[in-house]
C-alpha cells in the first residue's frame, strides 16, 4: 500500500532515528532533527519507536491514504487535519481509505508525522533516513515532490489494537509533551571554551541566519573573538556542538552535521534541548544558559526514563 503526496510542502523528508555507528565512514547520524518527537509519535500508534515517518518543515503538506491507518504527530506549532477533524499534537487519529490529511505550520518550525506501519522505503546503511546532502536514503535521496507515491509498511498487531481503542476519530489519550525553555537552549562547556568567549555567548540573544539548514544553525549577533588564531586539528563533532568559525559567528550543529570539523568547539547544546534547537528557523531568536555536564546527563537519563515509562504504560494497556 502507498500514501499519495498531493502537495509536498517544502523540504518534507522521510526520516527515522538515523544511521548509527558509521561515523568512521564519514556518514552522519542524520535522521529526524528531533528524534524524541518522532519516537513519541511512533510509540503512540503502536509502531516501533524508530519507524520511518515524515519530517515536515514549511508549506502545506497534503497526503491521501488508500487504506486504513492511524497516525500521530509531534513537534512545533502545526495544524493537522484528517478530513475535517483537527488532530491535536501527540494524539492518535484514525485515517480511513481515501481520507486526506493536511499539515500546515502555524509558525515556522518542524513537525514529525508517524503513520502506522511506517514509510517503507528501502533501508540504506541500516536506516531509511534521507541524507539530503549526500543524496541517498529516504525517498530517492531527496525531499518529497507533489505526486510521489510512498510505500507504507505492514501494521503491527499493536497498531491494530490501538486503532480498535479509538472510539471516535481522535484518541482521548496522548503522549507526554516535553516543552523547552522558550528562546533559551541549555549548553555545557566545550573543550575549547574559555570564560571571555563564554560570557559573550551567554550574554546575548542571537538571531538564526538565513543560511541555516539540517546541518547547522548559523547565528547572527555580536562577534565572538576566538581565544587564539591557532588552527586546530580536525576532529569529531556531534549534533549540539557549537563551533566558532573565524568569522566569530557561532554555528550550532544539528543532526545532519558533518562528522569532523576543525573549528573551536566552544560549547554543546545538551541532548534534551536539541529538539528545541530543531524548531529554530531563520530570524528566530535564541540565547543560551550554561549548566554542568552532570546535570545535562541527569536530564537525559530522566527524559529516557519518562519515555520508557510511557512505552511501558502503552504496552500494559494495549499489549
Amino acid at each position, binding site marked *: 500500500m502507498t500514501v499519495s503526496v498531493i502537495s509536498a510542502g517544502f523540504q518534507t523528508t522521510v526520516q527515522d532515528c538515523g544511521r548509527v555507528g558509521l561515523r568512521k565512514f564519514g556518514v552522519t547520524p542524520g535522521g529526524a532533527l528531533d528524534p524524541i518527537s518522532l519516537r513519541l509519535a511512533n510509540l503512540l500508534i503502536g509502531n516501533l519507536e524508530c519507524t520511518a515517518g515524515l519530517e515536515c518543515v514549511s508549506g502545506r503538506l497534503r497526503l491521501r491514504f488508500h487504506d486504513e491507518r492511524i497516525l500521530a504527530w509531534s513537534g512545533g506549532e502545526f495544524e493537522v487535519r484528517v478530513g475535517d477533524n483537527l488532530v491535536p499534537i501527540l494524539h492518535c487519529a484514525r485515517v480511513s481509505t481515501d481520507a486526506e490529511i493536511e499539515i500546515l505550520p502555524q509558525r515556522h518550525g518542524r513537525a514529525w508525522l508517524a503513520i502506522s506501519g511506517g514509510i517503507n522505503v528501502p533501508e*540504506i546503511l541500516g536506516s531509511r533516513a534521507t541524507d539530503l546532502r549526500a543524496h541517498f536514503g529516504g525517498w530517492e535521496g531527496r525531499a518529497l515532490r507533489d505526486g510521489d507515491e510512498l510505500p507504507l509498511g505492514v501494521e503491527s498487531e499493536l497498531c491494530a489494537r490501538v486503532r480498535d481503542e479509538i472510539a471516535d476519530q481522535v484518541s482521548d489519550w496522548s503522549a507526554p509533551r516535553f516543552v523547552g525553555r522558550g528562546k533559551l537552549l541549555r549548553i555545557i562547556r566545550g573543550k575549547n571554551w574559555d570564560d571571555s568567549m563564554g560570557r559573550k555567548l551567554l550574554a546575548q540573544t542571537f538571531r538564526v541566519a538565513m543560511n541555516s539548514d539540517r546541518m547547522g544553525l548559523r547565528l547572527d549577533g555580536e562577534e565572538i573573538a576566538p581565544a587564539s588564531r591557532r588552527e586546530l586539528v580536525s576532529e569529531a563533532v556531534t*549534533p549540539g556542538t557549537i563551533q566558532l568559525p573565524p568569522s566569530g559567528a557561532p554555528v550550532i550543529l544539528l543532526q545532519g552535521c558533518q562528522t569532523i570539523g576543525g573549528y573551536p568547539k566552544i560549547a554543546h547544546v545538551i541532548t534534551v534541548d536539541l529538539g528545541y534547537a530543531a524548531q529554530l528557523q531563520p530570524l528566530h531568536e535564541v540565547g543560551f544558559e550554561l549548566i554542568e555536564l552532570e546535570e545535562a546527563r541527569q536530564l537525559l537519563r530522566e527524559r529516557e526514563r519518562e519515555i520508557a515509562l510511557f512505552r511501558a504504560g502503552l504496552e500494559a494497556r494495549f499489549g
Partner: protein
Amino acid sequence: MKIDPLGDSALIINLADKISDSSGLLARVLSAAETIERAKLPGVIDVTSSYESVAVFFQITQLGPDFEDRIRALIASAGVRVSGKRRRVEIPVCYDEEFALDLKRVANHTSLTPDAIVALHSSAEYTVACIGFMPGFPFLAGLPQPLCVPRLESPRTKVSAGSVAIANAQAGVYPLESPGGWNVLGRTPLQLFRVNESPPTLLQPGDYVHFRRITRAEFDVFKQ
C-alpha cells in the same frame, strides 16, 4: 592521554604527546579506536578517529559507572597497530585541464610547472588519516611540502564528484558533488562512496594511497 566530554553523550580522547611524530601518532590513534570498538562496551554506539584523537559515542542509560576508567585501560592496552595490515590503494587520476580547475592557481602559488605539480602529487605516498567532511571523503596526510597551498579565497558552490584536491598540508578526493574550497588538480573515475557495499567507502583510515596519472581516454574506459 587527555579525555574531554564531547557533549553529554560522547567523549573525545586526545593521544598527542611530545614523542610521537604524526605517523606514529596516527598508528596509536587507529589502534586505540579499533581496540575500543572491539571491546563492545555496554552503551557504546559509535567509535571514530581523526589525526590525534578518538571519539566514543554512547547511550547514557546503558553506561557503566566506571566507563571512563575502562576507556583509559583499553587505550593503554592498545599499543600500535601493525602497519603490515594496512592496504595499499591506487587511485587513477586524469589531470587534464578540463578537470584540473586549480592547476594554474597552484602553479602560481608554488612557482612549479603544471607537469612538476602533477609529478609531485602522483609520486607521493599518502596515508588516510580519517574519513569525514562528507561520506567517504579521505583526509590524506603526506602531501609533498612544495604543494602546500591555501584553500580558495571563496569556496566553489559545486565541486564535481571524483575531484582530486589539495589544501594546506592535506590531500583529498570529493566522493560526491558538493560545495568545497580545496584546490582541484584532477578527477578520478573511481567511486569513493558506495551506499550498497560493505564497507561503504573505498578507503579506510590507515590505508596507504597512491595517485596514478591516466589519460582522458583511460578515464572514460574506467567510467564505463
